[in-house]
């Protein structure tokens, strides 16, 4: 890439993040309790209507589900508290500026583009989720678990309509949607609970004492549906731990936690994990078990309708919409760096169009577990680089923030650690068949080792900065 072009890209990227350039000042520090609501709101979302049912489809046994979710969510909370929060409160910087100091702006542009692409696909899945509810009054043919391509004209029309509305709102602005999302969040959690409780009698749960027997024999039977792979305790544990890997181990939540008074605020992520990734996943799993016994339609709209009627449909539409909207907005921000002269609305409209086309393919929604795992894995190595740069390099007598110190546009050790880690994970998958859900753990150690080793070589060969 020519240096003038890189300089131009960097200037635009910096301008977008300009208001966040300085570390958070003392007067803007938030009490730890405010993070509880924030995490609870963020993790009771549209994805929860899909993930719980997919565990049922993959034949998770009841004991594996409950134990896996309890432990996996605990590990996720610990990752926020012990990995992300300590660096966030010490630097008071967001991910963008911390990464810029380490990797240089050139590598950061690449990171932003990958991030934007992943955001597009995630928002696409959420538009698909909303479409399954919008299509019910029109008797739309619902996508099935193994559908990859659009299955009917009705599906295409509904997705295009949903995508157009979501994109229009994203173009008009993000703040009102964010406010609406905040209002929806306590109601949405209760909708999940109410949906599940209301269908318990139809599954044979007449009293609390019946629940475990029904859970083991009717809901999480341990037998996967036709064409689905079998998930074990380890799948559930690692998925619960790593489904937000980009946020905790990948350090994206430095942007939030830098406002915390102490690193202990990271523990408040437990509100998001145990309300959203425990209660909501269990609730949507209960709903899909009933759906499999009745009409066999496992899409989010039909299962929510089974539990709560019109309010359930409203919850699916709102959940999909409020998740898709900020995601399209963020993808637009990230892409703005490489679309010279485009106004914000044009970039957002373009992202919305890409997202809507992606949403036409039900595979994105029905393979959400794999996609979420891939999303975290792709961005995790940069979190490992930040961890190693902040904690390990100074202890080894090496300098941190090397790109900033040397005015580099591209810090090769970080780039090789990123690409090399992904290549190693691919090799682990290809050679030993290690599934994508498990790759994050060895991947993190590989990324740290690569970055530390390459930094030693790189800095050893260069004169030390003043």
């Amino acid at each position: 890439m020519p240096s003038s072009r890189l300089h131009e890209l960097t200037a635009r990227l910096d301008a977008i993040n300009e208001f966040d350039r300085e570390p958070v000042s003392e007067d803007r520090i938030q009490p730890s309790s405010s993070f509880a609501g924030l995490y609870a709101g963020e993790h009771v979302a549209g994805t929860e209507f899909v993930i719980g049912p997919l565990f049922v489809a993959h034949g998770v046994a009841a004991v594996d589900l409950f134990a896996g979710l309890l432990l996996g969510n605990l590990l996720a909370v610990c990752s926020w508290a012990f990995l992300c929060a300590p660096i966030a409160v010490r630097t008071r910087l967001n991910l963008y500026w911390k990464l810029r100091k380490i990797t240089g702006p050139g590598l950061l542009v690449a990171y932003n583009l990958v991030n934007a692409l992943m955001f597009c696909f995630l928002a696409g899945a959420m538009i698909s989720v909303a479409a399954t509810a919008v299509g019910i009054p029109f008797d739309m043919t619902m996508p099935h678990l193994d559908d990859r391509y659009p299955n009917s004209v009705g599906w295409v029309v509904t997705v295009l309509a949903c995508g157009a509305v979501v994109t229009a709102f994203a173009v008009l602005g993000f703040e009102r949607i964010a406010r609406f999302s905040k209002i929806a969040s306590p109601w949405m959690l209760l909708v999940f609970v109410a949906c599940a409780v209301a269908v318990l009698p139809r599954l044979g749960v007449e009293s609390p004492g019946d629940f475990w027997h029904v859970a083991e024999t009717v809901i999480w039977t341990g037998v996967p549906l036709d064409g689905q792979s079998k998930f074990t305790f380890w799948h559930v544990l690692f998925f619960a731990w790593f489904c937000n890997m980009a946020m905790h181990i990948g350090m994206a939540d430095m942007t939030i936690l830098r406002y915390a008074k102490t690193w202990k605020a990271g523990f408040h992520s437990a509100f998001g994990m145990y309300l959203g990734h425990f209660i909501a996943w269990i609730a949507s799993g209960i709903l899909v078990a009933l759906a499999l016994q009745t009409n066999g339609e496992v899409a989010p709209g039909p299962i929510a309708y089974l539990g709560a009627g019109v309010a359930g449909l409203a919850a699916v539409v709102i959940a999909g919409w409020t998740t898709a909207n900020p995601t399209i907005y963020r993808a637009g921000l990230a892409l703005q760096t490489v679309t010279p002269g485009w106004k914000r609305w044009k970039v957002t409209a373009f992202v919305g169009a890409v997202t809507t086309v992606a949403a036409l393919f039900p595979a994105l929604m029905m393979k959400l577990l794999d996609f979420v795992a891939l999303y975290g894995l792709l961005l995790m190595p940069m979190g490992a680089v930040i961890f190693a740069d902040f904690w390990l390099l100074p202890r080894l007598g090496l300098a941190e923030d090397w790109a900033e110190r040397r005015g580099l546009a591209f810090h090769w050790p970080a780039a090789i650690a990123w690409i090399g880690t992904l290549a190693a994970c691919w090799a682990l998958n290809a050679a030993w068949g290690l599934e994508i859900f498990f790759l994050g753990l060895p991947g993190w150690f590989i990324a740290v080792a690569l970055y530390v080793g390459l930094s030693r070589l790189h800095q050893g060969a260069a004169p030390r900065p003043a």
Partner: protein
Amino acid sequence: MRTVYLLASFAGLGLTVVPAFLVWSGHLPWSTHAVLMAVGTVLWFATAPAWMHDKRKPA
């Protein structure tokens, strides 16, 4: 007025979740629960913005 909105909002949340437990205990048919949940949803979204966006401390 703020207190009225607040009470109406929590009544909305109550209508969203309590009928489901009555369905489970056999005291309410599912169809009534669905209607009450829809009413609760409308009540919540109609009244919560009035106090959730208020900068003052909760009453």
